[in-house]
């Protein structure tokens, strides 16, 4: 594919003597995971469409340290954090947007204590801002009337009380937002948090992502919307496990908005 995405790096911006409106923190999943890369690109298309002056760190970005911290490796976490903070402070970063709730939480809550003070927003909050300001418009188009259920990422919802931004965006699609029995502050985890993504689950009688996928499928959705690359993987696996991949799609909110624009 040879689509033209405008993705300037901070280094390039600095060389031109420009300061971007916002830093897009891509995150490890968004950079390397094949499924998550599609989310990254969808979000970039929206940023390009809305003429947002953004930049990425590119090869200067490194893991926030979230999985290390949740595993208990405080030392590795702080090494990562301090290194990243040094880079971002050198570029005088003020505002960060990220499509990963784990990066979002860590940057927003755990970096200030180590000298990194930024205004950090999740991409659903940022997109909602673009729509509210009229910089981006969205019409339901292909999603009009579709049944969409939203899976709350723990590190966006309970951890940081962001429940409405993603839902507002789904409503803007003229879609039918259907809630699972456990949603918002009672949303069930997908099973990936706390570094579980990187290990086999402990012994039990079921995988957490299967339990959550069953809850989602109870709402008879056409689309399960996610706002986190790890939730996306877990729910996609869950849907495959239930052999429903022909009927139900798992999509990030950024993909929904971008697809509605035919981007």
């Amino acid at each position, binding site marked *: 594919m040879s689509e033209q995405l405008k*993705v300037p790096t901070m280094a390039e911006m600095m060389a031109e003597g420009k300061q971007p409106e916002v830093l897009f923190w891509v995150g*490890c999943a968004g*950079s390397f995971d094949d499924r998550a890369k599609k989310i990254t690109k969808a979000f970039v298309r929206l940023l390009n469409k809305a003429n947002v002056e953004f930049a990425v760190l590119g090869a200067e970005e490194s893991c926030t340290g979230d999985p290390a911290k949740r595993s208990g490796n405080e030392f590795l976490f702080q090494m990562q954090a301090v290194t990243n903070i040094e880079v971002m402070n050198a570029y005088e970063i003020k505002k960060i947007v990220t499509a990963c709730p784990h990066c979002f939480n860590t940057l927003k809550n755990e970096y200030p204590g180590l000298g990194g003070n930024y205004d950090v927003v999740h991409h659903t909050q940022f997109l909602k801002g673009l729509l509210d300001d009229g910089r981006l418009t969205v019409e339901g188009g292909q999603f009009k009337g579709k049944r969409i259920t939203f899976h709350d990422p723990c590190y966006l919802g309970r951890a940081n009380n962001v429940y409405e931004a993603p839902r507002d965006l789904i409503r803007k699609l003229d879609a039918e937002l259907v809630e699972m029995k456990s949603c918002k502050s009672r949303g069930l985890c997908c099973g*990936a948090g706390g*570094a579980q993504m990187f290990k086999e689950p402990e012994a039990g009688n079921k995988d957490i992502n299967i339990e959550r996928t069953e809850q989602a499928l109870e709402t008879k959705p056409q689309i399960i919307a996610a706002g986190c690359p790890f939730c996306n993987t877990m729910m996609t696996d869950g849907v495959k496990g239930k052999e429903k991949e022909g009927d139900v799609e798992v999509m990030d909110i950024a993909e929904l908005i971008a697809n509605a624009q035919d981007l």
Partner: protein
Amino acid sequence: MNYIPNILFAIALIFGIGFFAKNVKKLWRNVKLGQDKDVSDNKPQRWKNMAMIALGQSKMVKRPVAGFFHIVVYVGFVIINIEVLEIIIDGLFGTHRIGLDVLPEYVYGFLIGSFEVLAALVFVAVVIFWIRRNAIKLKRFMSPEMKGWPKNDGNFILYFEMVLMTLFLVMNATDTTFQNLNSGNIISQHIAPLFSGVSEGGLHIIERSAWWIHILGILVFLNYLYYSKHLHILLAFPNTYYGNLNPKGQFTNNDAVTKEVMLMMDPNADPFAAPAEDETEEAPAKFGASDVQDLSWVNLLNAYTCTECGRCTSECPANQTGKKLSPRKIMMDTRDRLEEVGKNIDVNKGEFVDDGKQLLNDYITKEELWACTSCNACTEACPVSIDPLNIIMEMRRYLVMEESAAPMELNNMMTNIENNGAPWPYNQMDRLNWKDE
């Protein structure tokens, strides 16, 4: 005049309250075995949380059935205790229903009438609680950690309350002067006919017995608290006050680690420098927690506050899918171990003598700790702001930073982060390749 009952009453009161005070002191000493934690910030928000969550029961009603009946028992408990004031004055001074002497009859009747209605409601609510635990057998009361003492403890409390409420109503029903007033006997007038065949003298004996057993029962119940999960009726207040005010996703940054990291990152630091003369601060004995003394005192207060309702466990994704982890068990284990450490200190003249045991492994297994997804469902569910997740994370820190005992896959993940800045083995230089794919 015969002063023997007054003296006996005073002795019972001093003994009951004194013994309780002794246990409260012990409880506080045990809580203070925990590490310091500064919770002196944002007092207005803390008072507000206490008012909303403990006093206002705002989280209890998230589950409407249990929440409603809990409020009945809670309001009943608080308001009926006004009556205990009259009982204490009567007991100490040999008066009978002193309230009638100082209050207009209709006010007194209104008060006692309210207590009677509440007593009846509490009785009904407590019976429903018993049915939920023993007949319906709600899943969250049937977990493995609820076998034996925790199950009996829960039922004893319910029996206690049933008996106390019954005694209060019987005491009123057999009090002929009170019944003759016909004001405030809204419930007890329907109990009085049960005793219609009993002589005046017999009624008096029943009334006095009910009165004495009621107040002695309250003193016994007060002292039962320390040995029971029921401490929450008192500790819910400080516990919600000292509860976490930060976003739930914000985990503490370990200061000792920060110092080391900053030193490593400082290009001007001399790695071979001798510590400065006035360096009084020592590195902490260890990172994370393997025993209760390594936890913060707020963690330990949490443990005493837990009333084992199991809302945390029923919301826990790991527990729901059959893993060994139960956040409630984390709290129960912490309290059990803390009590064991406290007893150790008691028998060893104020010094803790190593007993070869610790919270990790002897109480909480690694398997439980590694099952947690850190999703915060437990902390969200807790009606009294207990934070089991913080204990789990402190124990993971110990496992990883002191024992290097992370599961192999997590070690691989961390090695990847160290070497190439991502949890997977990709080159950091390729982070922007997606742009052109």
